[in-house]
């Protein structure tokens, strides 16, 4: 019995053949890890973890609407996320407002998604995948969409990097220095919407946080150097996705539990390591 379940979770028969099949997925996963790891540090700095969750649910609604009417699922999820990101960005400038806006939007999005899926008569795996993730053999069209969107996010972030850091830390001082704080905000929300939409393709709407928040949160536990945080966060995110795909291969279980477990383990590890450093630093600070 136990062995049976174990077989379902870890099954590596014909692993070599499977590996060839999912080569594209692995590349896509690595790309997503890169995007999630990089944007995650800004998500944390701008206190937007909850917003990521909200955007994901509306993205899910968009994707399931697309599934229902037979449109492109990726496009549907993209429309959903961008809309949600812009609404959250526009209505919730201050954290308190923002959280209530998200709290209102999120169940609405989830409800819509459930409605569309209930009406949908196609393959059940398609439905489930939107919520909990899937590794399908990514075809060339999907692949180019994914890589293209990821590239837009990464290039966009690279372009606004310094002013975005400044505005996230100290909006007033940044504005005094000439940083267009009010323009940067929606620009970042659009980039975030794009990242959520691509991530959903692999990890599913419910677990986007594991990719866009956990790795950065883990990295921030062990270092405060901006470069090291970004590199570590990317490393953690890529490890989670690629590791998740490799482990999920051949099992009948969706990919998300593997991804979330790896990323959670990394976070725990960082907390344990970082807890010590932070406490030491604090002691040094207090003894002065």
């Amino acid at each position, binding site marked *: 019995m136990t062995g049976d379940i174990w077989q379902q979770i870890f099954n590596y028969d014909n692993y070599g053949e499977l590996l060839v099949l999912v080569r594209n997925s692995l590349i896509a996963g690595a790309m997503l890890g890169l995007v999630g790891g990089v944007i995650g*540090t800004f998500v*944390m*700095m701008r*206190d937007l973890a909850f917003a990521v969750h909200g955007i994901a649910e509306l993205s899910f609604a968009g994707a399931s609407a697309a599934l229902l009417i037979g449109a492109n699922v990726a496009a549907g999820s993209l429309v959903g996320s961008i809309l949600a990101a812009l609404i959250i960005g526009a209505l919730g400038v201050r954290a308190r407002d923002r959280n209530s806006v998200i709290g209102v939007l999120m169940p609405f999005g989830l409800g819509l998604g459930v409605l569309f899926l209930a009406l949908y008569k196609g393959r059940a795996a398609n439905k489930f995948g939107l919520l909990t993730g899937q590794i399908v053999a990514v075809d060339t069209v999907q692949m180019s969409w994914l890589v293209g969107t990821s590239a837009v996010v990464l290039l966009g972030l*690279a*372009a*606004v*990097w*310094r*002013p975005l*850091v*400044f505005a996230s*830390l*100290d909006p*007033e*001082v*940044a*504005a*005094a*220095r*000439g*940083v267009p704080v009010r323009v940067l905000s929606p620009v970042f929300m659009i980039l975030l919407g794009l990242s959520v939409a691509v991530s959903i393709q692999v990890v599913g709407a419910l677990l986007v946080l594991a990719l866009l928040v956990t790795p950065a*949160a883990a*990295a*921030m*536990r062990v*270092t*405060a*150097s*901006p470069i090291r*945080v*970004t590199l570590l966060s990317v490393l953690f995110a890529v490890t989670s996705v690629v590791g998740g795909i490799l482990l999920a291969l051949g099992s009948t279980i969706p990919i998300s539990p593997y991804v979330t477990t790896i990323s959670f383990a990394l976070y725990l590890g960082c907390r344990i390591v970082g807890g010590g450093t*932070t406490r030491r*630093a*604090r002691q040094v*600070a207090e003894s002065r």
Partner: protein
Amino acid sequence: MTATPLITPRRSNTDNVISLSGAELAFGDRILWQGLDLELGRGEFVAVLGPNGSGKTSFLRVLLGQQHLSAGTLLIQERPPRRGSALLGYIPQHRAVAPQTPLRGRDLVRLGLDGHRWGLPVGDRRTRRQVDELLEAVGAKAFSDRPLALLSGGELQRLRVAQALATDPAILLCDEPLLSLDLHHQKVVAELVNQRRRTHDTTVVFVTHEINPILEMVDRVLYLAEGRFRFGTPAEVMTSASLSSLYGSPVEVVHLNGRLVVVGAPGSHDHGGEPSA
């Protein structure tokens, strides 16, 4: 007691760094101040006082070019104000940094140098040296590599001074930079600003609720209240008669151990140093 001079000798200023004439700021039909004429020269230290909502921060925003005057003109070094001008440095009030913010002391200072530029923070040796010099200037070398979230309020304000000095500004604008610091650190931070003014002839506009920590540095006071203002030396402005006519109700200025205590200003706080509720 009498040893504390209330008036620092005003220097003669031929070249005005900031000049306002007939300046008015109103939001809707609410006038914050009007008919404001003032000329501030190099190295002058001006304290901006007034109750909450009297338009002190808005005054700084006007100087920064973020807020247009409703009437009158403003010239900064003979030119209209420009957003993001390197002529102005800005020190905000102390606010704690969110835990786990992935930035260290030196990163905050560096934002003052190139945080407004597009692109990635690729560092060269020159930037690094400049940051080191700025850290040195405010005595923040010792904690420059520590995470911002672990720094004390006083340490953080030192770094913010260094950040504001990054462009070697002709004017330093400070918006209640001493708020929530203890007395010792109030002195330290105010002294850093004053020292910069002495060595670089920087003009300082210092918004504060509490004039006493900077009383000895202040050349002139701009006191905003009730849609009106008073502008002059501390000895001229900080008197019972002047403030009573400004507020339109009896206000008393008491000298206490070389400190000024304003008693009875409506809707205000006492400038006494005791934390106001």
